[in-house]
């Protein structure tokens, strides 16, 4: 049993409350990502799980054991730090075995464990080097080796990839995923990078201002964000928010209307959604990839597509796709286009919006309707 259970966890530094009642649980073998902007409390939460910060209120359980006041070394955890935190005066081998040495594991067993981990991470040739002689990616591997070697109940990662360059980061991300697949340990992974969270985690906890905004599977968090913060934080470019009013379309179906350039646009909502009485103010959330160049073939194949005319203000080609900025009245709306269908600057384009993926938010509570 190596599950993690956090109930009503609170943390205050003096009068400042940085964690305001956190509830998260990770099943055995699960990969949980804590994601949020800097200052949201995610690193503090991780430090509390590790035992490096004290608990002000609430419970942390690893397996069935309440560990609130258990010392870090007795929690049976391993942690990978953003700075790697390799001991600079020790060789890679000494770095990896330091923990076992501190716990009095006999030498033959230590050697055996180093061999196993070095093979797993392919760092055998580095064992005699000092951290200063390693590249960023190699240090990262050693840091993971140090965590893996002890076979702990729980793995904690604190933004382990943010010091690597972009390409290496993607490679290491894949490797962490493979590693987790092979080792199958319960893992808590802190990151501010929503792509890392999406790709790695089996469940994501999106944090903001000391609270968990949403804790769910990646695709659910992405498709049905619990509130406008989550919707805006997950996904890049960010989701478009369009203030709108509930109404009915020509056929009497529920729809939203908003001021577009050159008139009012009325977009029919997907069947089965009944967000409330007509006249209610809402915020329509549409992801950039659900905005594209309208065509009749598309409409024929997918009924949920609505259309709007909008002038194109700016075009940013990235190669794989082209980002277009369109004007909806006073708003700027971002769309992701196939380069072949990319809009041109100054053009007034007829946009198709896939309403089956649209979200509606309450403008006051900012929660998903």
């Amino acid at each position: 049993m190596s599950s993690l259970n956090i109930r009503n966890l609170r943390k205050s530094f003096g009068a400042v409350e940085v964690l305001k009642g956190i509830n998260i649980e990770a099943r055995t073998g699960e990969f949980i990502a804590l994601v949020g902007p800097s200052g949201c409390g995610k690193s503090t939460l991780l430090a509390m799980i590790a035992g490096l910060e004290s608990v002000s209120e609430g419970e942390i359980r690893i397996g069935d054991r309440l560990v609130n006041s258990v010392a870090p070394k007795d929690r049976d955890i391993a942690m990978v730090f953003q700075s790697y935190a390799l001991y600079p005066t020790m060789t890679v081998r000494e770095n990896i075995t330091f923990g076992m040495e501190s716990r009095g594991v006999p030498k033959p067993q230590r050697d055996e464990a180093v061999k196993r981990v070095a093979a797993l991470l392919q760092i055998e040739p580095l064992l005699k080097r000092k951290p200063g002689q390693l590249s960023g990616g190699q240090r990262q591997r050693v840091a993971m080796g140090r965590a893996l070697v002890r076979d702990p109940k729980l793995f904690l990662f604190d933004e382990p990839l943010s010091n690597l360059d972009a390409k290496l980061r993607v490679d290491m991300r894949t490797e962490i995923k493979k590693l987790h697949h092979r080792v199958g340990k319960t893992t808590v992974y802190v990151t501010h990078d929503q792509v890392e969270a999406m790709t790695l985690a089996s469940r994501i906890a999106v944090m903001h201002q000391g609270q968990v905004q949403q804790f769910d599977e990646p695709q659910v968090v992405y498709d049905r964000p619990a509130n406008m913060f989550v919707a805006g934080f997950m996904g890049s470019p960010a989701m478009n928010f369009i203030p709108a009013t509930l109404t009915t379309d020509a056929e009497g179906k529920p729809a939203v209307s908003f001021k577009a350039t050159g008139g009012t646009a009325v977009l029919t909502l997907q069947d089965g959604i009944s967000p409330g009485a007509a006249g209610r103010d809402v915020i329509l959330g549409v992801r950039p990839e659900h905005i594209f160049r309208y065509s009749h073939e598309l409409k024929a194949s997918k009924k949920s597509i609505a259309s709007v005319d909008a002038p194109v203000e700016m075009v940013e080609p990235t190669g794989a796709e082209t980002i277009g900025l369109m004007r909806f009245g006073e708003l700027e709306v971002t769309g992701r286009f196939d380069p072949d269908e990319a809009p041109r600057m100054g053009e007034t384009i007829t946009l198709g919006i896939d309403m089956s993926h649209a979200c509606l938010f309450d403008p006051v509570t900012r929660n998903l309707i």
Partner: protein
Amino acid sequence: MTDATIAAVHDREAAAASRRHFVSRTIIYALLTIFAVIYLAPLLILVFNSFREQPEIAQNGLIAFPRSFQLKAWAEAWSTYCIGGTCEGMRRNFLNSLWMAVPATILSTLLGAMNGYVLSKWRFKGSEVLFTLMLLGVFMPGQIALMPWAFLLGKVGLTNSTYGLILIHVVQGISFTTLFCRNYYVSIPDDLIKAARIDGAGFWRIFRKIILPLSPPILIVTVIWQFTGIWNEYLFGVVFTSGREQPITAALVALTASGTNVRAYDVMSAAVLIGALPPLLVYFLGGKYFVRGLTQGAIK
């Protein structure tokens, strides 16, 4: 045609620039040489006089180029010269100083390292206040503590003893060594300590296995600083010890004040040099590391 004129103009300017450069360099080096001579002259005169014969010094004056050579002043200063009735030279006082400075340096450095470790990596409520208070010791002149020390040494029975001086220098030195080590350890990332705690290492194990191996640069600085400071210290030595128990700095004064009719400048020079050699040696051997240790952080 035009190219040639442009080149000529440039050549003139370049020549003027290199002339200016040459002149300014010459001035700089001349000034540096003058100051070096001013600083080194006393040392040079002492070295000369320690090898000159006393009659020749008397005849040609203290500051003169040597016209004679002898080694006997050194031997005399070391082991046979008479100070205040005892004829043992400086040897005993030299050994007193060594027996005082070495343990006091080691102890104060170790204590400073431990203090610095606690104040930077195991902060507690009030640790910053404590550190600020310790810093006051850096700015407090030693003479302020004379009376309290006299009282204390009397109470514990360590007056006129090298052990008493060791105690004084260890305590007086802790402010400095703590300041040096604490500021150096602050630059060691806290993540290292956290990682070690998760790895199961405790307070002492982290100190021994992680902090100390990172410390040589700052330990060299504190050792040099403490050793030269303690060796050269005079006030406590002269106040709390007398005669055979005096460190060499205090004994040198007794040497000049001893009542022989003829001033033995050759022996005095040799004695002063004997008293100055250890700090000079320490500086020559470790000076390079001193500057490096002060400017370099813990983690490159």
